[in-house]
């Protein structure tokens, strides 16, 4: 099981992070102090740390200096928007940098990216009678091969990673088609239709009105 450390001093933001991380299906520890965070990182084997910069005790920058970022990747959370701060954070060895305020789904996506970079993510997803192997790029339903186009495949994998989370068309567009893709959201609709038809999951890949789509949990 993947375990994260949430180091954030504002109580409500900390709670929000807890809820977000548990939606993503990760375990977590929390603390609200820089020194405590350093100790916890040194003595536990976290897969990822969400680190606020303005922490009491010692700042996020100080914490990163004291720990081994090769072993434990760090995502900075901060209200500072200065580019120099961003550069400083990344130079110190942080994997990513998220500026407050942010959407929880975006945080999950960033966590995803880093875990994949560190080979800590799943490569095989099983969804009911459907098996998806990301490494081999194959989809099987009842041991029968299903052919998906590359975009459909990517889209479906993204749904699998975010089971039970409503995903907006904009988010899907930006994740699967790239941030600079300015195509219409109807592209997403067309691909979702195709996925539903090919995998016969019309009932579980449902439309959320005025929002987007959600892949429902099978159990």
């Amino acid at each position: 099981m993947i375990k994260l450390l949430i180091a954030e001093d504002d109580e409500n933001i900390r709670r929000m992070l807890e809820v977000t991380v548990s939606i993503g299906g990760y375990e977590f520890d929390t603390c609200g102090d820089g020194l405590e965070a350093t100790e916890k990182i040194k003595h536990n084997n976290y897969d990822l740390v969400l680190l606020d910069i303005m922490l009491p005790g010692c700042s996020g920058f100080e914490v990163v200096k004291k720990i081994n970022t090769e072993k434990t990747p760090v995502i900075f959370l901060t209200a500072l928007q200065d580019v120099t701060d961003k550069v400083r954070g990344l130079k110190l060895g942080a994997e990513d940098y998220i500026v407050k305020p942010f959407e929880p789904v975006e945080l999950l996506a960033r966590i995803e990216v880093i875990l994949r970079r560190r080979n800590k993510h799943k490569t095989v997803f099983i969804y009911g009678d459907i098996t998806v192997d990301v490494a081999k790029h194959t989809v099987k339903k009842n041991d029968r091969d299903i052919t998906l186009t590359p975009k459909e495949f990517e889209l479906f994998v993204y749904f699998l990673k975010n089971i039970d989370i409503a995903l907006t068309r904009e988010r899907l567009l930006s994740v699967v088609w790239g941030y600079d893709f300015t195509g219409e959201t109807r592209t997403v609709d067309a691909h979702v239709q195709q996925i539903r038809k090919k995998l016969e999951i019309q009932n579980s890949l449902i439309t959320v009105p005025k929002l987007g789509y959600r892949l429902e949990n099978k159990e």
Partner: protein
Amino acid sequence: MKLWFKIFISTLFLVIAMINVTVAVILTNNRSLMISRERSRAVSSHEFICATLKNNVAYERLRADQFVMSKGDIDDIVKNTILKQFAEDDITIIYDEKGELTRIGSDSVNPSELLDKIKSKNDIYSLINDFNGKSYIFAASEIILEENEYYVITSQDITEIYTEGARQLRFAQMISVFLACITAVILLIMIKLFLRPLNEINKSINEISNGNYSKRLKIRGSEELRGLSENINIMAGSIEENYKKIKGVADERKRFIDSLAHEIKTPLTSILGFADILRIKKNISPEEISEYSGIIVEEAKRLRTLSGKLMELISSGNGSLELRPVNTENLLGDLKIAFMPIVQAKGIELMVECESLIINADEDIFKSLICNILDNAVKASGEGGKIYLSCKRDGDYAVFSVKDSGIGISEEDRKHIFEAFYMADKSRSRKQGGAGLGLALCAEIAKKHNARITLESTLGKGTEVQVLIKTAEAGNNEAE
């Protein structure tokens, strides 16, 4: 053109001109002296020739023992005398009444105009004239030899004087150019030496204008340059001072904006996060909904407090105050009424003691100053705490005091307590709905009223904040 070059060129020409004028005056003077000397010499040699002619004629007449000599004999004597005795003279011409009798020297000399002049005069006549590029001085006179009239013209070549004069002038010109060059070089070195401090001043000014505002010039050189350096130093001083002042203001503003951004973004993060979670999460239990929406409301309220305080801060900073006499008793009375419900709810005892004094203040804004301090005291006190609010006269001042028995403020925190967004204990402050702007607001209001805020505190024992403002009486006396 550079100054040193201007001085160099103008000096060079001026010196050359001066030397030339002087030399020309001296040479002209000298030459006229020499010419008059030559003239008198020419006259005396002319007289000598005339006398010799007369003597020879007389001598020959006596030797021949004749009473009268024929004109032909006299002509011969004259010719022989001239040819034998004065062959070395430059030019000698003798005329008789009929015309030219004898001549020595250049043929081209034909001073017939002289001949006309001496015929009408008895004296020796002299004249300077040029022939064939040479200058001559002529002397002419009429002599009577045995009752025959003769005209004698003698001349001296004085070309030498003129050529010598011209040669000297050329030499003097060469010397003058040479001297002028030497003078100019010496002058150049001197100018460079004198102007060197100016170069240094220039360099220093460049350095100052490039941002080294603490640079000062060395005071040295001539008096003008010293004065210049001193004035530049004064200028640099005021630039430095203003620069520091502006930088201070800019830094303060940047800190304020940074803090403001942080204070706005923190509640926004929770609001956006939970709102999005409510939107995207499936199967949310009613407990979760009430927790998340509760947090959203709480954080939104925080934003509301922040914006309210911010508006207060801005309006107190911008608007001009309407100062009116305010009775302190009424002021504290109003505050007591306003705070009673709050302190009673928290189980805090509020004691008010007040002298009746009149101060000049904008009542609403000044009330918000005391109100903020009182609010801090309430937040610092727990149940069973005591808050002591008073107003007393101390000399010209009315002293408001808010004393609590709360948690106190550490020495480190006291240094920053009037800075906007500074919170000694963030989580506690946020729980109580603080924005970290209260005392910054107080400082701003106090500044507008020319009042002073002092703060004394012991950690764990309590805090006393005093606001000192001149009474209306003292203020009016001062104005008069």
